[in-house]
């Protein structure tokens, strides 16, 4: 159990800055997920916490104590690797017992702890097998078992599910979450998969180009992204970005004049926040969930017209893809709308969920929450 603090963490490889000025306080028992595209520095950050990479600058503290110069052994962490990294020449039992043996624990104690972890992960029957005789999912469980038995201060997961197929990934996600509940140990988890980040994390740390872009609980990051990068990275299907111009409407309110044609009213609550962008080119960010192919055709609908290219049915719902002012976008529709590919339709926007994005900086203009 430990509180982990990263202070101005930096890592350079020659002239390449892999990690820049990362500051993060992870509470004891918290499940933090570092997420970002490949090469964003998330794995490097994790490996610095593990003690597998030296720091170029900054500090790492476990429970207030600086651990920068401690070896992985001295840090008392446990790590699960994407490649599983099981010792191929040892049985499952020996793989799990390895760390305990090195600690010099008594044989009975080792047996007890391995058996406990094995029961927790449902791998008790595999104890005498070698890693090559296991399936991918089983190997991943053994790798987690090997981490659990050590009862470390911090668990570090480096893309542990990336080599599993989709169904198994979903199942293992649930198990990892369950394990965290049972063990209540601090977890730092690295992934490029934003769904893993959303489903697992107490707090998400979005990284890009070696920097931390945004830290927050999953719903905050999802609903109030700090910039266009986070807005685009978090959430499936991806957020739509439509070029527009902010103008005044008749009644003192604001409207967005879309580049591809159409006028959308800005909610009144945002008038004050958006005022500085009046008569400027901006981008409107809105998730496909908040755009819908509108059948009703009521009076003055908040929407715009577009021609549907493709409709993708997901089962319960469907997504209509269209091109708008040269930008690909998507809106939700009903599965029966499949037939409407090629048709020109009205797309209605739920403007309460829109984001205004500065064109040059990519910053999402913050709004006061009610």
């Amino acid at each position, binding site marked *: 159990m430990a509180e982990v603090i990263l202070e101005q963490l930096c890592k350079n490889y020659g002239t390449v800055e892999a990690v820049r000025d990362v500051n993060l306080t992870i509470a004891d028992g918290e499940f933090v997920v570092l997420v970002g595209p490949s090469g964003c520095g998330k794995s490097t950050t994790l490996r610095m916490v*593990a*003690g*597998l990479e030296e720091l170029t600058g900054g500090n790492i503290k476990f429970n207030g104590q600086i651990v920068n110069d401690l*070896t*992985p*052994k001295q840090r*008392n*962490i*446990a*790590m699960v*690797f*994407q*490649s*599983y*990294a*099981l*010792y*191929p*020449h040892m049985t499952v039992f020996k793989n799990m017992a*390895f*760390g305990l043996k*090195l*600690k010099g624990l008594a044989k009975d104690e080792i047996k007890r702890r391995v058996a406990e972890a094995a029961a927790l992960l449902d791998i008790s029957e595999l104890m005498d097998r*070698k*890693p*090559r*005789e*296991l399936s*991918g999912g089983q*190997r991943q469980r053994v790798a987690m078992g*090997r981490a659990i038995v*050590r009862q470390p201060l911090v668990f*570090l997961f480096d893309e542990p599910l990336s*080599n599993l197929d989709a169904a198994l990934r979903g199942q293992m996600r649930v198990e990892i979450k369950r394990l965290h509940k049972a063990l209540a140990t601090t977890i730092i988890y690295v992934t490029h998969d934003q769904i893993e980040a959303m489903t697992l994390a107490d707090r998400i740390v979005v990284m890009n180009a070696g920097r931390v872009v945004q830290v927050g609980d999953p719903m905050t990051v999802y609903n109030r992204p700090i910039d266009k990068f986070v807005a685009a990275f978090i959430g499936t299907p991806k957020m739509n970005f439509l070029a527009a111009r902010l103008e005044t409407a008749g009644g003192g309110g604001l409207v967005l004049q879309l580049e591809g044609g159409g006028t959308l009213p800005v909610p009144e609550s945002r008038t004050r926040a958006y005022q500085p962008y009046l008569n400027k080119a901006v981008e409107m960010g809105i998730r496909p969930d908040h755009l819908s192919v509108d059948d009703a055709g009521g009076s003055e609908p908040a929407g715009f017209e577009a021609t549907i290219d493709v409709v993708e049915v997901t089962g319960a719902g469907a997504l209509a893809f269209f091109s708008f002012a040269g930008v690909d976008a998507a809106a939700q529709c009903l599965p029966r709308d499949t037939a409407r590919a090629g048709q020109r339709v009205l797309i209605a926007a739920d403007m309460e969920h829109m984001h205004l994005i500065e064109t040059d900086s990519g910053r999402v203009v913050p709004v006061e929450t009610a």
Partner: protein
Amino acid sequence: MIATAKKAGLRLWVYGTAALLTTICGFPLAWLILTSIKPDREIFAAIPTFWTDRPSLDAYARLFEETNYLTYFFNSIVVAGSATLLTIVVATLAGYAITRYRFPGRETIAGGMLLTYMFAPIMIIVPFFILMRGIGLTDSHVGLVLSYTTFALPFSMWLLRSFFQSIPIDLEHAAMTDGASRPQAVWYVIVPLALPGVIAVSIFTFIVAWNDYIFTFILITSDDLKTLPVGLFDIYTSSVTDWGMITAAGVVITLPALVFFVFVQRYLISGWGAGGVKG
């Protein structure tokens, strides 16, 4: 039916060829062993016989009683064994270091290792002797062991380096996050996985040291310190050529290498590598 016949034909061909090759390789060894247990009269018979009706170990008795061969034998064991151990230790550490540590000139050193292997020992034997005399290691087993290690090392390091390179670094990192120090990670995880390489190195070094004639001949002067190849040559060049004894000496010099190889070759079989990391 035709397929089965074809298969049987192929099998016959494979086994036939294998048997022929084994005979070609094995015949001199068999002849050596058989000659060593023949009475003198049969050895010199005008029409040589393959089998003997009266096998005897007289030649061996003469070998051990009348010559220093047993001393040479133990010297060979000590020298070849020590050189093998030393080479394994140094080559493992060096091969590991050159694989895992980053330092300027790493690739140059790796390439240089192979270059030194290309020099035949005979080319540098004279400067080598002068060097050994300078540090007072002529006429000693330490000098011999160091010589064999010197010449076995480049190839051994090169071989182990390629083994270490094939072991995923994640395994080592896993061991270290599992609470192992670097030496422990190397000892418990890396070395067992590179075992086929270590065995290959040990066979190579043992054979180099066991078979060496020239270094012992140049460096060793005391009779007590001589090894088998030089001892064998001494017997051959002594006043009367006792073929029975020479063949017995030949058997004694061959058997340990044979036993050593039979003992370690089963560890050469790899196949441990798979399954630890993905795929």
